[in-house]
């Protein structure tokens, strides 16, 4: 195994801030990404409103226009935030990027540090000095609720959302990163202010910097933006809070006005990030539906012409595998059967050496080029960091290259079907002999054994 090559130089600062720096001259920009950690719990919706309200103004740039005009002036700098989830962890995510000092012809690093600090810690206030303006909170809460309602507009996204909601109904993971629609609608102005206060005072924070920034400048950036004050970092809870698998396969059908049916299948695996078998699961996914060399693409799309869009993805923190396919609803049984047959083939190790080679190469190509995009680099490091795994591209590449067909088969055998969700226009035969037809309501029915 080659020497480990740490992608980021890390330092722990006072008050729960972890600084991660990757110095490179490859980019014309510097990127700063901030992750604030909390559990994916009933406070999720209130926290998700916070980045939206923070965008509405700061102490010295008190409205949306002054914030955006300032960003324009700083040579089109970007600064925004959103809410994400990794397993049962809620992460508020802020991203800033700006052109290098050389291109700007002026020092932007200190200016951006002050800007980002004020954006997070010194928001615009009500007339009485209360931070986070009431009007902004009310509007942003409404817009977030609209966003939650509009999820049905994107049928592919909606099918995935409903699959997760059904499959993980008794787990915290079922909650979307923006919270549930009813939770958002029920928020008070005070809830959102409290959420901001808690984040600012208690949430552990990671700051990632990528660009031509030496460690001393990175520390100065951190010190300028960071208000350590009396921070008492709180435990954001585990990223994986256990699994409640279904007792077999559930098939849920739902009707909507769609021309194309969406077939979404949810599987569970005991392999999560940090597990020594995680590289084998990655190769498994590349062979299954994660790449165009995988069996789903080759068999279900190219050989059978059943679909245009078909793929599988792994949620590595929680240990989930999702398959998505856009099909004609009359092909449901055929597609369902074919997808499970591909999984069975992988479990039995029915993989040609050439397929294996292609799948490994696809992953290695991704790993080798991850350094070429600041967003990919930080995404890779964040997902690993919060799962307690060192973000080491070289070590992972070595592990991927060593994965054998037996390893893939073993990983495939951990992948168990949990729930099937079909969004379709009309009633069509299901793969399950007792597949219940429900409208907007999940039901348990025995599916394929």
């Amino acid at each position, binding site marked *: 195994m080659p020497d480990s090559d740490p992608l980021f130089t890390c330092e722990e600062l006072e008050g729960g801030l972890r600084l991660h720096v990757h110095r490179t001259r490859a980019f014309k920009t510097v990127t700063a990404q901030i992750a604030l950690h909390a559990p994916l719990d009933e406070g999720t919706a209130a926290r998700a409103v916070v980045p939206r309200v923070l965008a509405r103004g700061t102490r010295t740039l008190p409205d949306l226009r002054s914030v955006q005009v300032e960003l324009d002036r700083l040579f089109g700098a970007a600064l925004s935030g959103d809410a994400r989830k990794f397993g049962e962890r809620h992460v508020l995510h802020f991203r800033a990027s700006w052109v290098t000092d050389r291109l700007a012809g002026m020092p932007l690093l200190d200016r951006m540090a002050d800007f980002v600090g004020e954006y997070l810690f010194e928001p615009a206030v009500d007339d009485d000095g209360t931070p986070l303006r009431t009007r902004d909170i009310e509007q942003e809460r409404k817009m977030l609720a609209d*966003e939650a309602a509009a999820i049905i507009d994107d049928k592919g996204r909606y099918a995935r959302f409903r699959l997760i909601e059904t499959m993980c109904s008794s787990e915290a993971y079922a909650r979307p990163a923006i919270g549930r629609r009813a939770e958002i609608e029920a928020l008070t102005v005070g809830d959102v202010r409290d959420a901001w206060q808690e984040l600012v005072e208690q949430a552990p924070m990671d700051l990632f910097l990528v660009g031509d920034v030496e460690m001393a400048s990175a520390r100065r950036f951190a010190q300028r933006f960071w208000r350590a004050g009396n921070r008492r970092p709180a435990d954001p809870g585990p990223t994986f809070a256990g699994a409640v698998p279904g007792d077999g396969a559930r098939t849920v059908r739902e009707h909507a006005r769609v021309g194309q049916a969406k077939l979404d299948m949810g599987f569970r695996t005991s392999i999560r990030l940090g597990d020594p078998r995680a590289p084998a699961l990655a190769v498994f996914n590349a062979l299954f539906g994660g790449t165009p060399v995988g069996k789903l693409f080759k068999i279900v799309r190219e050989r059978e012409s059943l679909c*245009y869009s078909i793929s599988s993805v792994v949620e590595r923190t929680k240990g989930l595998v999702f398959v998505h396919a856009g099909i004609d609803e009359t092909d449901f049984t055929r597609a369902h059967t074919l997808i499970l047959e591909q999984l069975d083939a992988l479990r039995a190790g029915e993989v040609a050496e050439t397929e294996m080679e*292609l799948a490994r190469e696809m992953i290695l190509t991704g790993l080798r080029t991850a350094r070429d995009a600041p967003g990919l680099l930080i995404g890779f490091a964040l997902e690993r960091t919060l799962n307690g795994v060192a973000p080491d591209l070289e070590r992972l590449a070595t592990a991927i290259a060593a994965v054998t067909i037996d390893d893939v088969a073993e990983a495939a055998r951990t992948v168990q079907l949990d729930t099937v969700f079909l969004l379709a226009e009309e009633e069509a035969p299901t793969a399950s002999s007792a597949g219940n037809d429900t409208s907007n309501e999940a039901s348990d029915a025995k599916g394929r054994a």
Partner: protein
Amino acid sequence: MNRSVLLDPALDEEIHRCEFASGLTAYVVRKPGFTKSYAALAAPYGSIDTTLRRGGETATLLPDGVAHFLEHKVFETKDGDAFDLFAARGASANAYTSFSSTRYLFGSSRDYAGNLRLLLDTVFDLFVTDENVEKEKGIIGQEIAMYDDDPDWRLYFGGLTALYAHHPVRIDIAGTAATIAGIGPDLLRSIHAAYYHPRRMVLAAVSPDPVEATFDTIEQSLGGRSFGEPAEREIDVDEPRAAAQAEARMELPVARPRLLLGFKDVPPKAGGRVQLRQELATAVALDCLFGNSGSIFLPLYEEGLVDEHFSCSYEADRTYAFGMIGGETDDPDRLRGRLEGDLDCAARDGISADDVERVRNKEVGVYARAFNAPEAIANLLVQHHLRGTTVIDYREELFALEAEAVNARLRELLQPASRACVIATPRSGAAS
């Protein structure tokens, strides 16, 4: 081989250009700080090319969606699926068809020259059979069905059909299940021979490898091939200046109403710098009004009439040009009234020199940012070539742009008769 170098001193980048005996033009930027190599090969042949004529023949009418269909088939080679061949060489490949061009591309982490040769072989050696063409119809049929369920796509084409009476930009890029049903291998072969001709095409590559790696590979790959006569683009449409319809309404399975306001613009027939100037002035104008700090967008956002997904776009080619703005709203009729009123004011009062200056400043950063990513650099070079400009023209035009030109552009773009409004309302029972 005819070589030259363009320098962008501000960005510290060198753009190498070469015209080959085969007629192909290629651009290369060397990026030693990157692992990835990326190359895009493009033909100015897209969904708006609805006829085919070579030499003295009479023009044949082509079925809707055939450019996109051909794009799908190009990635099938006599040695198997091109995705696999690229993957085996540490690369991943993709392709896109737009109104006016088709692009094939790959990003690789090793064996750059091998992948580039593969890209050229894949694009120039078409392998179609009755069987593999037939098989593709099911796949594309599902692609069409997927887009039919996409409300943004439906609204966008609702806008285009309201704006254009005849121009083929109003036709969906993938066609319909019915229009692609009759496509066979012979048709694809004759289109391929006529439109995928190196004299019409451009390649742009970004790689840590020396510039010669690209140029030598192209020379070796294309040097031994012979090509017939290329087809010239013939889009002869008598399209009126005014919008075909001022208003259209549709029902869609969405939770909230959506509104789209389209602007049919004068096409920049001459292409080149004329087109660049038009695109740039329009982009600056629209950014001043609808960008993140836009004077029309922000008040609407603060009132809650639009959300952050409200978007604005502009597209121009030699035979068409249009702008689109729109998004979700609770009250499409009120939003429409507000937008129409605000646009009339903007056309009348104009945009201030300060605003133009600010957006220009921002553009400097946006342009520099493109050079962060090999994909973005290559696509920028392709886009410039197809237009007939260079990145140096872009810089010159950006700094020469004055508020008066921006405002003249705005008045032309916002002519009331050339606007169309499409409103989509939720179909009852669509949302939970």
